[in-house]
Structures are given as structure tokens and as C-alpha cells.
């Protein structure tokens, strides 16, 4: 009995040794900074505090109140939601379409197409953002050239406040749909063939089968893809940083870009921490909302 206990203890000790490095790293360099970030957000930490810590004062909710009265913050909120609420569903839709095409029974060279569709996802965002910037060029860009062939007048994609965000969404959909497509293919392949057979016996056509068998079976996949995509899209940063610097007229300044500028360009770290926390709350609330909606439907 005693021996048994020491074996258990030994194993528990080994377990702690195995997880200790991760716990220390996550604790010190993630959890601690997240907590500290909240504390930072109730101070007026700025350039002077960076020089002398004695210059920091606790200001309570002041940063949050100031944000609520800052039109630039609200514009960053609107831009972020625009990007996430339009770009997110669009990406998921394109992913599902691509998955259905690649996974179709009659499709040949499936592996080849799957690879071609997935390649944009593994590329470096900064590099392809630069490439897309030239593709979007109003006079020399291939996109306007192609649209011109269809009789559409040139659009100043990144220079027109109305078009800059759609242009960034275009890049994001292209860059990201491949990952979700893989998840959808995995989901499609796990739908039992008998369900389709039963539907066919009941006389269901292709559209009916898709609506009554494929879509309901994919519900868990939709949830996973939806949550992961939206969490990522609320953190929009590199695309506007490289392509538009948040312009024109702040039309592509996202919350994270706003936070970066406040924190690391103007060194108003207290203010930036408040923005970071608003982002945190948004992502948390949105994820809970998605989980709730799914649970209610199921």
C-alpha cells in the first residue's frame, strides 16, 4: 500500500516537472502581463512614466471615459466590426464553397486543387499585403485592368475611403479561406454516407440533400470555424499597417492598429491598455454569443 502511494507520488512529481516549463512561461509572459495590462489601463502611464516610474498616477476609469468620448476610437470600433462582420462570414462562405468543390465526387486531381487553395494561407502576410497593394494600383494594377475589360471604370481601391476596407477584406478572404476549407473538408468527409442514401431514397435532390444532410452535419464545424475566424479577424492589424497605415481618412484604422499607435508610437501606454481591454471584452463576448447561439439551435 505504502509502495503504491509513492509510485503515485512519483508520477505526480514527474507530471509537474513536465508541465513546469510551460506553466512558468505562460504565467510569466502571458497571464501576468494580461493582469498587468488591466492595472496599466487605470493609470496615466505615458512617455514621462517610461523615464521615471514615479510619474505614474492611478486615474481610475479615466482612460475608458476618454475613449468613449474619442471619435477616433469609435471609428476604429466601426472599422473593426465592419472587417469582422463582413470579412468573417465571407471567408467562411468561400471556404465552404471551395471545400464542396474540392470534395465533390466527380472532382479529379483533388490533392492538387487542395494544395493550390491552401497555399495563400501559409504565405507571409506582410509580403502578400505588399503584393496586393500593387495589384490594387489604380492605374497599373492588374485588378483594375481586368475590371476595365468588363467595362468597369478604374477604382482607387486603397485611396478611396469607401473602397479601402473592401480591398482589405478581399486580401483577407484570399489569404485565410484555405485553412477553413481544410476543416470543412474534414467535416464533409466525416458525414456518414448512409445519411445521403436515406435522403436519396426519400427522393431528395442535390440541393435538398445539401440543406437537410450536409449543413446540419457540419454544425460543429461551422462553430469551430466561426469562432476561430472571428477571434482572428477582430485582431486586424498587419493588413492596414502595411497597405494603408490606417487611412485614407482613418477608414481602415482597426482597434489593434489604434492600440499600437497609441502605445508604441505616442507611448500613451495607459490609454493603449484600455483599448486592448475593450478588444478583449469584445472577443470574449462574441465567442460566448456564438457558443450560446449554437447551443440553442442544437
Amino acid at each position, binding site marked *: 500500500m505504502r509502495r503504491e502511494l509513492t509510485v503515485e507520488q512519483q508520477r505526480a512529481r514527474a507530471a509537474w516537472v513536465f508541465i513546469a516549463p510551460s506553466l512558468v512561461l505562460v504565467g510569466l509572459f502571458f497571464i501576468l502581463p494580461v493582469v498587468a495590462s488591466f492595472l496599466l489601463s487605470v493609470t496615466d502611464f505615458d512617455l514621462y512614466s517610461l523615464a521615471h516610474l514615479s510619474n505614474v498616477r492611478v486615474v481610475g476609469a479615466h482612460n475608458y471615459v476618454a475613449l468613449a468620448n474619442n471619435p477616433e476610437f469609435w471609428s476604429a470600433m466601426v472599422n473593426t466590426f465592419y472587417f469582422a462582420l463582413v470579412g468573417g462570414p465571407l471567408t467562411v462562405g468561400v471556404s465552404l464553397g471551395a471545400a464542396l468543390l474540392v470534395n465533390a465526387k466527380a472532382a479529379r486531381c483533388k490533392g492538387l486543387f487542395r494544395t493550390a487553395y491552401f497555399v495563400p494561407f501559409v504565405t507571409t502576410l506582410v509580403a502578400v499585403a505588399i503584393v496586393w497593394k500593387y495589384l490594387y494600383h489604380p492605374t497599373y494594377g492588374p485588378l483594375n485592368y481586368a475590371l476595365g475589360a468588363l467595362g468597369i471604370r478604374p477604382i482607387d481601391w486603397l485611396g478611396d475611403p469607401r473602397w479601402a476596407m473592401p480591398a482589405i477584406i478581399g486580401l483577407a478572404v484570399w489569404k485565410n479561406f484555405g485553412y477553413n476549407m481544410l476543416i470543412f473538408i474534414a467535416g464533409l468527409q466525416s458525414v456518414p454516407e448512409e445519411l445521403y442514401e436515406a435522403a436519396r431514397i426519400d427522393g431528395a435532390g442535390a440541393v435538398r440533400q445539401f440543406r437537410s444532410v450536409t449543413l446540419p452535419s457540419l454544425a460543429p464545424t461551422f462553430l469551430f470555424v466561426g469562432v476561430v475566424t472571428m477571434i482572428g479577424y477582430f485582431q486586424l492589424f498587419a493588413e492596414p499597417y502595411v497597405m494603408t497605415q490606417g487611412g485614407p481618412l482613418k477608414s481602415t484604422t482597426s482597434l489593434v492598429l489604434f492600440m499600437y499607435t497609441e502605445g508604441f508610437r505616442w507611448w500613451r501606454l495607459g490609454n493603449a491598455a484600455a483599448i486592448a481591454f475593450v*478588444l478583449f471584452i469584445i472577443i470574449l463576448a462574441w465567442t460566448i454569443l456564438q457558443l450560446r447561439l449554437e447551443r440553442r439551435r442544437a
Partner: protein
Amino acid sequence: MTAATAPQPMRRRVRIGPLALHAALIVGALLALFPLLWMISASFMPTGMANQYPPHFVPRHPTFAHYREIFTRLSMGRFVLNSAIIALAITGLSLFINSAAGYAFAKLRFRGRDTLFRGLMLGLVVPVQVAMLPLFLLFKEMHLINTYWGVIIPSLASIFGIFLIRQYTLDIPDDLLDAARIDGASEFRIYRSVVLPVIVPILATLAIWTFLTTWNDFMWPLIVLSDQAKMTLPVALASLAGEHVQDTELMMAGSVVTVLPVLLVFLFLQRYYVQGIMSGSIKG
């Protein structure tokens, strides 16, 4: 329409089906690959050729001049080296750290294990940007700003990585581990000689995933590395793109050099990578 001709539209639809399907597949593939093909093509164009109307799609007289320039005048080699050092260090070290933790969470019993694991998983909804401001202040105190370690350390442990390994390791039969214990193997030896060989496929997936993510990572390296000699490729490229707005062909060469390593890693190892993503998502 008589009954005799009725089956014909049916048959025709069956025949058009695959044709339309493959047309859609090919158009999709062209859309997915066009930006990358154009990038490669433009990087070989003589200066100014990419800024002409109507646009050219193939260089008539391909030139290596821009590649020569980015490696000599813009010291791209330095950035390649920085990126490689950082991405490889993170990939190698994090593989041990995350696999050990993932295995312990899956197979070793200890008090508070499940609570701890659930707590860690909550971290997945916390955007990393929230940690960045205090982390910058902390690293400033630790003199890690403008160092490789400043980029490496926060990426060493990954909640996602721990999760991925745990899901995979759960499938290892307990009998296998118990047999090794009866043979008198220590817990560390079991991890090294029994567990690691069994989970090689998921380790490969995680290694490729980590390498690609860290190579492509932008925001944190941008914050930590302001000294040009330490910059990774994406950070250097973003800064160069600001100075060389008009030099399309030059920037395309820079983009090719940045993207090529991850593209090659993916193309050669995609079997391990793609399967891991697909199986991980189903279980998750």
C-alpha cells in the same frame, strides 16, 4: 417535349456537371495562385516594367538585378538569417516544452490537472495584444528589447500546441506506458523512449505549424526589434516597403525571398501538416 426525349436533359446535366465543376476548380486555383505568380513574374522584370499600362504579366527580358540589389544594398541576407535563427529556435525549443506538457495533461494523474488544463484553455480567447504592452515594459527592464530572445521567449510555450499534443496523446493505450513502468523505466525515460516515437506525426504537424507562424509573425517582432540589424524579414520588408513605394519590382523580389522558405517547407512537408490540421479539428 415527349416522354422519349425526357431523359436527355438529365444526361446532359450529368455531362455538364463535371465540366462546370472543373471549370470552377480551375478558375478558383487561378485566383488563389495569381497574386503569387504575379509576384514572382514582376520580381524578374526590368525596373519600371511593372508600372506600365496595359500591365505586363511576363518579363520579356528577365533580370536578376533586383535580387542582387536586395542582397547587396538592402542586406536582405541579414534579415533571412535573423528570421531563420528566431523561427528555428522557437520551433526546436517549443516542441519539447509543449509536448512534455501535453503528454502530462493527457496521461499523468496529478491533483488539479483538469482544472489547470481548463484554465489554460481559457487563455485561447485572450487576444495576445492585451499582453503586449506590459510585456514590452517587462522586457525593457530585462534588457530583452532588440534581442532575439525578446522575440523567442513569449513564443516558447503555446496553449494551442499543448492542446494539440494532448488530444493526440490521449489515444496512446495506458497498457503501453504501464508495461514500460513495470520494466522499471523512469517517467522521463517513458516520455523519451515510448511517448515521443509514437507521437512523431503530431510533432511534425506542430513543428511545421510553429515554424510557419513564427516566420510569418509580424506585430511582436515589430515592437521588439527596432534595430535594423536584428529585424526579421516581415519587419524589415514592411519598413523597406515604406521607403521604396515606387520600386515595385524590387519589393516583389523582397516578397519572394520572404515567402519562398515557408512555401518550400509547406510544399515538401504538406502531408504531415494537412493531415494534422484536419484530424486535430475533428477531435477539437
